[in-house]
């Protein structure tokens, strides 16, 4: 910027701007290349060796997905944040013992988050007291729509809580996270055939549980 201003009388500004942009772009590409080349496992090893920046990079890279998985399964922001924090704590703890090549960090995290969420769902199932959906305080369409969406997501999460834990995990990984059957098999450490069976039975059971709440969730006029 300064160079362009200072040299504006003598050098065509276009040349200065072009040159600086080229340099900035080159630097940016170098940074991106460096970041792309570093795997989660590499960052985890660097963290275990005391690299604080690696912890920040891993958090920025993994926390959004971890939180999203928990939110989709639990439909509760506070509970999901607790699960996400606990999953990351477990990641920090395992870092010194992490062996490259064992598993992908993302696969390991899918498993940890799924287990933590089904733990929460189990507790919810035992203490489920027919939570009444709060009436909207405001009648504006946005608020009503938001409340209905939240009620539907909570109903789905409560229905997951009614399923056997392995079924709930398989269904969530397949239909909420969009993982393929072989990926789910790795996460759950079972065969692909078992995954197919669990997801099929789980989805059927989920539909049966939710069938009774059709009107309540606003699907009665379909």
């Amino acid at each position: 910027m300064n160079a362009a201003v200072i040299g504006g009388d003598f050098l065509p500004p276009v040349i200065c701007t072009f040159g600086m942009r080229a340099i900035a772009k080159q630097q940016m590409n170098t940074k991106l290349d460096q970041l792309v080349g570093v795997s989660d496992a590499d960052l985890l090893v660097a963290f275990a060796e005391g690299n604080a920046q690696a912890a920040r990079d891993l958090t920025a890279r993994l926390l959004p997905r971890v939180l999203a998985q928990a939110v989709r399964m639990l439909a509760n922001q506070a509970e999901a944040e607790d699960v996400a924090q606990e999953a990351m704590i477990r990641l920090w703890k395992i870092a010194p013992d992490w062996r490259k090549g064992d598993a992908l960090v993302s696969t390991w995290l899918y498993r940890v988050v799924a287990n933590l969420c089904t733990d929460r769902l189990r507790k919810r199932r035992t203490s489920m007291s027919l939570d009444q959906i709060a009436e909207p305080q405001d009648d504006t369409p946005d608020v009503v729509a938001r409340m209905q969406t939240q009620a539907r997501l909570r109903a789905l999460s409560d229905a997951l809580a009614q399923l056997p834990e392995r079924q709930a995990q398989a269904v969530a990984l397949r239909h909420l996270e969009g993982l393929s059957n072989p990926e789910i098999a790795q996460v759950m450490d079972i065969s692909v055939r078992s995954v197919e069976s669990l997801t099929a039975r789980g989805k059927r059971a989920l539909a049966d549980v939710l069938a009774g709440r059709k009107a309540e969730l606003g699907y009665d006029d379909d």
Partner: protein
Amino acid sequence: MTDPNDDMLDDLLAEARRQAPTPSDALLARVIDDALPPPHKAPRQTWDFITPLFDVIGGWPSAGGLVAATLAGLWLGIAPPAAVQDLAASALGTPVTVGIFSDELAFDMGGLADG
């Protein structure tokens, strides 16, 4: 013909998939705090017992004063000046019978006895 219950379930699952929350700054801070310092440096925390105690007595300036006072006391015990011994004798009211004082001093045994 599709089952209406399946349609509802597919709709609910699609709704859930659309949820993509962004971690709050507070959550990011909590996670980073959990990570740092790294677990393998945990033994350094043993200093935490000493540091507060050190702060209570006033830090380095006070510690320096304590060391100077201790050394001065030690020196007085090893090689006490004559005036200190004189003062001690006056305070205790006991006669000094050891022959460490020379005859040129302005007092003798009689002068010190019985105050």
